[in-house]
């Protein structure tokens, strides 16, 4: 293998997410300030839902008390089962379908939403066992769920989402607003 010329650049080489995924965002979910979600769309159209780095859960040294995929009395995302290539049986979620509720040790509770329309393929059960994954690796091992958009909607579902640039500009305006005395 020839890699000598690469060595210097590899430290900054694109990560797995950079290589295969496009980052999309929803800011201030349902009007709740800073409750930003991130949607990683793979080139094969599949989407991984994660917290955005600006989400309150990831700020101020918070820690997590519990994560609950039981979003109502009748519906638990943990019961989601898909079978076969066509993923039969997966719950169909829309933009504002709750995926889970996360309670921090300071008793603040946040709801994470699906952000896009599609079939729920799986939720991340690892964060139930190890909630700290959510804080340590929010964009990889601490993901929330995997959603497969309909084939014909795979391009249009991101139309309502913010691109990385748009999201960053929103975030930078926030910090300007914060620093200005009101």
């Amino acid at each position: 293998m020839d890699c000598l010329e690469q060595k210097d650049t590899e430290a900054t080489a694109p990560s797995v997410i950079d290589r295969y995924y496009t980052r999309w965002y929803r800011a201030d979910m349902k009007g709740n300030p800073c409750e930003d979600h991130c949607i990683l769309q793979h080139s094969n159209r599949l989407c991984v839902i994660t917290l955005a780095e600006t989400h309150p859960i990831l700020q101020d040294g918070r820690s997590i008390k519990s994560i609950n995929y039981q979003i109502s009395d009748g519906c638990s995302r943990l019961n989601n089962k898909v079978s076969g290539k066509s993923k039969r049986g997966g719950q169909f979620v829309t933009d504002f379908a709750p995926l889970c509720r996360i309670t921090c040790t300071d008793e603040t509770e946040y709801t994470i939403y699906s952000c896009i329309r599609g079939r729920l393929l799986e939720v991340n059960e690892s964060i139930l066992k190890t909630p700290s994954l959510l804080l340590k690796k929010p964009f990889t091992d601490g993901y929330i769920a995997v959603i497969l958009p309909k084939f014909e909607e795979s391009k249009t579902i991101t139309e309502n989402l913010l691109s990385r640039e748009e999201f960053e500009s929103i975030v930078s305006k926030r910090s300007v607003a914060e620093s200005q005395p009101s």
Partner: protein
Amino acid sequence: MLPLKEKDKPVVQKLLSAGCCARCVLRFCCVSVQAAYRKPHQETLKELQAFIGNTENGKSQDSVAADSTEENNKSHDATVPEPADEPADDPPSKRAKLELSGTEAPSEEDAAEEKLTEEPSVCVVCLGILQELCGTTQAVKIAEKVKAEKYEFETLVLSVSLPAQLCVREHSCWLHVKKELREKSMAVDKDDVVQVKEAFKWVLQGLVAKEIGGVAVVARSLFEISVGFTHKETDADCHFLATTCADCFRPTKNKQSVFTRMAVVKALEKISDTKFLTHYACPPAKPTSSCSSQDVQCLHQCVFVAGRYNKYSRSLPQTPWVIDGERRMESSVEELIAESVLSSFRSEGFNFSSSGREDVDVRTLGTGRPFAMELLNPHRSNLSRAEMKLLQETINNSSDKIKVRDLQIVSREAMGKMKEGEEDKTKSYTALIWTLKPIQSEDIAFMDDIKDLTLDQKTPLRVLHRRALAVRPRVVHSMKTRFLDSHHFYLEMKTQAGTYIKEFVHGDFGRTKPNLCELLKTDTDILELDVESVDVDWPPSIPE
């Protein structure tokens, strides 16, 4: 000399007056001497006429002869009112034309006699299949087709597809002479009648072999020539069966007509003789034209070519990569191999399969990956070892992105060995690994001692859109590290086939467990991957 007995006479008599051709008469007399069919049918007809002429004084013959005379008179009469001098732009009906040509030289002779001695009309049962349609013209047509397409072969099998209504006509004719046949021998059954197909082949095979030259026409061969016939005029013959045996004719996809040969045969088995006779003429009505023959089709059975390939490019997919109908990479392993193979075998197409596959950015080194190609309708199939070697060189000289070895012709059965190996065989890889935290060679050395590490791999996200979601246990049999620098090392692995290496390294959002990030307690990523060996011992190696 006709292989017929005295007892056959009433049958022959009855069939001839019904409008059967000479060969159909032989068929219904259950003559299985092939040579009898190979004689020119006009000659056989004369012999048959002479044969029945010997016993003009029999009582039953008299009545049949009278019948036939009457019938021939009738049909002759029917043509009389037709104006003989029609204007040219108003073409006479086919029937009229045929009848007229058959009676071009009208004479004072008895109409029945003239009918028997002149050029015979189209047979009511075979619709001409066993008359002119299996003559030299047909054999020449077949030979021309084969030569035009430059097929190379030693033997061929002839297949024929006949219009389904032939079964109906056969049945009608069988009922017509059943009584006479049973008088000859009680045991005789419809199955004892020689089939049209059979007789057709007996006649045509020799002629085709003669026209093509140097080949044998046999019952089983890799090379098949099919001739097909249709007869529009009598297509409606079958239609009454749809009302009497509706359950035999269910419309299905991919079928042009419900009246397939199989369905018609089934319906005829079910229908009672009386019911049949109320719906269909017995003997069958005379056709005005003979069948029209469709294009001659040639098909050589698939040839299988196997070998092993190396892939030296990180921008070459194994198979054509198309997304949303758009081509992503300009070439592929299978296309690079197929180009020369197809032209050597002059094949019309191919199906490529291999023992697993590698990603577009993965190289395959070592002795390569087993593959096999099914070549569709090859016009040439018997390449020698030396020619195969030459073909291999041609492929290898055509591109530096791939290399092929052990190229050989294999049997269809042997292909299975390649797929057998897919699950339980092992594969060896070398991966270039990046680590987030700086490492020293001691930090990674422990992995050299890990043996048979079982991974639980969830279907990787990158293929989850087209594969079922499942957790699959996969075994990493052994690992060997080669330290490179503080952030890089080579990881050599021997794994169970089907292990997703990239996901083992980066963890796939923690969906492969354990993964290299967990083992090394830092983020790791895979920068390059090479397949070093695919441990499937097929196809057999060919010494250089």
